[in-house]
């Protein structure tokens, strides 16, 4: 039984392999890269959290809990001195001020328990800005009490919720920035790579010039050029534009060299000799064969976008409150006071690190997987 079944399965697998397209093959290879898979999963979760921020976050990014200022994280627990419960709960909180140092101190009140519930009703929000709902992933039973998984900041805002919203902003800025630089790179690098010759030489020179200037000082100059009367939305788009505007040189170079090498690939010559028009050659042969490489490059350029956004916001040239991004949150956390007294405000830094790491690891994984035909020979 097994003797015959096994070769059959192998055969089926082989057939599947034979008729697998490039994306399927890339996926199969990528899947073998365990670290990259883990990273992709984490990033996926992050992105989902960002997309569904309104529902994942128990509270709005600016809604406050005045009775819990600079409050430490609350860990839901199952047991306390009064015994155990199946449902997780937290203790009630009393906030006092130290009479000498004037520091606000939150004291849990072990007598009161507030139970955590999932898919709880809470603040009215609009999912994606349209769908009204008051269901949140989790919350507290009690109307008045609030659950602050990662504590609160000096205004009593929930760090967890803010981090979720910040994730949305920062990732989307990264995406927009990468897309803009990608489009620019595609146009510029594409022109250089396809036209060649003098056009190529000129573009190469300009690329060289842009590449050689240190990028963050350049961003700083552009960011300083933003009119102060711009609204947060305008600043947001300006930021993506700025990040995109100078992110292209590396990409453009890669696109150009890819194009130049693909242009002379035998199968492209074959297509030309088969009478294909330039549009078909580019669309059918050149683009598909370098998209996978470009995707790798895009993924790799993400971390730089994210770090640039955080850095610019951090020095006050990027997004500013009440926008909430990782950079904005870290800018607000940038103090000795926070390190000593409210270190949980640095949690967004963890997100930055994890996101950048994830993108880097995925980039590595993709780079290995991007050319599925390298092994096939």
């Amino acid at each position, binding site marked *: 039984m097994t003797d015959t079944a096994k070769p059959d399965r192998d055969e089926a697998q082989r057939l599947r392999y034979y008729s697998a397209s490039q994306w399927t093959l890339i996926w199969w290879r990528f899947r073998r890269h365990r670290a990259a898979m883990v990273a992709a999963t984490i990033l996926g979760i992050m992105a989902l959290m960002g997309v569904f921020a309104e529902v994942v976050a128990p509270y709005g990014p600016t809604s406050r809990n005045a009775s819990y200022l600079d409050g430490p994280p609350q860990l839901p627990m199952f047991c306390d001195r009064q015994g155990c419960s199946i449902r997780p709960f937290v203790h009630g909180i009393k906030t006092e001020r130290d009479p000498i140092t004037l520091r606000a101190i939150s004291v849990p009140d072990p007598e009161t328990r507030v139970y955590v519930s999932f898919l709880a009703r809470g603040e009215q929000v609009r999912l994606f800005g349209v769908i009204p709902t008051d269901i949140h992933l989790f919350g507290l039973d009690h109307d008045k009490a609030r659950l602050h998984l990662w504590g609160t900041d000096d205004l009593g805002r929930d760090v967890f919720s803010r981090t979720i919203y910040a994730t949305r902003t920062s990732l989307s800025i990264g995406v927009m920035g990468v897309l803009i630089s990608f489009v620019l790179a595609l146009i510029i690098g594409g022109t250089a790579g396809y036209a060649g010759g003098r056009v190529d030489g000129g573009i190469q*020179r*300009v690329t*060289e*010039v*842009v*590449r*050689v*200037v*240190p*990028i*963050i*000082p*350049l961003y*700083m*100059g*552009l960011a*300083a*050029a933003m*009119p102060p009367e711009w609204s947060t939305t305008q600043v947001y788009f300006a930021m993506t534009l700025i990040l995109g505007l100078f992110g292209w040189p590396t990409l453009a170079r890669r696109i150009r060299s890819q194009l130049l090498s693909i242009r002379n690939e035998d199968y492209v010559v074959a297509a030309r000799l088969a009478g294909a028009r330039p549009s078909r050659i580019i669309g059918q042969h050149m683009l598909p064969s370098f998209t996978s490489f470009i995707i790798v490059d895009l993924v790799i350029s993400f*971390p730089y976008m994210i*770090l640039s956004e*955080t*850095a610019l916001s*951090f*020095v006050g*040239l990027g997004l500013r409150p009440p926008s909430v991004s990782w950079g904005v949150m*870290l800018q607000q956390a*940038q103090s*000795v006071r926070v*390190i000593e007294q409210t270190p949980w405000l*640095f949690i967004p*830094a963890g997100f*930055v*690190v*994890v996101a*950048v*790491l994830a993108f*880097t*690891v995925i980039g590595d994984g993709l780079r290995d997987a991007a050319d599925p035909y390298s092994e096939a020979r």
Partner: protein
Amino acid sequence: MLRFTAERFVGMIVTMLLVSLMVFIIMELPPGDYADRYAFRKYSGTGVSVTEADIQAIRVELGLDKPMLLRYFDWIGNIVLHGDFGQAFAFETSVTKVIGDKALLTTAILFGTLIITYLVSIPIGIYAAVKRASFADYGLTTFSYLGLALPNFLLALILLYFANRWFNADIGGLFSAEMKDAPWSLAKAGDLIAHLWLPAIVLAWSAVAYQLQTVRATMSDELNKLSVTAARARGVPETKLLIKYPARLAINPVVSTIGFDVNRIFSELPIVAVVLGLTELGELLLRAYLDLDMYVAGAILLLLTFMIVFMNFISDILLAWLDPRIKLGG
């Protein structure tokens, strides 16, 4: 070799001119100009009410009323012909004076960082390649990934805090109080080094991360080559074997990315400097942007870029010298 050098040199000059044009355009971008700021500075608290005409007069006085192209040629002309970078409005002195010492300090930070980067990344990268897939290798890879992922301003803040709280390190400057105004001496240089390590470490971490990966990858490739296997079979001692070929070749990509490293260091410098309270070019640049003190900003940007281009040039020459094949390809 001479021809190659001269060619690269001409290329460097052309690049610099184009960069200067771009820098100038960026300087021109922010709305408003220093005249507004200057009016406040000049008349603040004097009880004089400032009119638009006053501001226009200041504009004329500072030469900000001329058309942009003219100002560009004035600016670049003065830099090239007289080494004059223009007026530092906020300091009421010449840009050269404001930048003066800070350029030296910035260079000191840069070289401190580069030295740390190469001292750490080359041996460790080679080690990681030799001990591939070992515990040490994974540890080092993780460490370097962290270097890539940790925003350096955060690293700066954390290091600043711990250096200060635990080691009582002197912070917020590149010299201690007693050395700040002293003339240059060995003691002062020592003082500088004692203050340099913190920014240098912060800046070097991510540079180390990149270089570590490069060295490790190149080294791994080289180790796989037949010549190495053959030599090993001949019984050449392992250390000698490493130094003879692969290690030397593995340094090539490191040399070729010096310009890139400098670029990244300068890119991160302003932010790190702000956090660490260093008063060097990066921090000055940020302030100049906020003050609309555009000639200062322009000069700094140009200077930083010049250093990058120059290091690129050096790395090209060095590379051609290390590996003559490059010349033919170039």
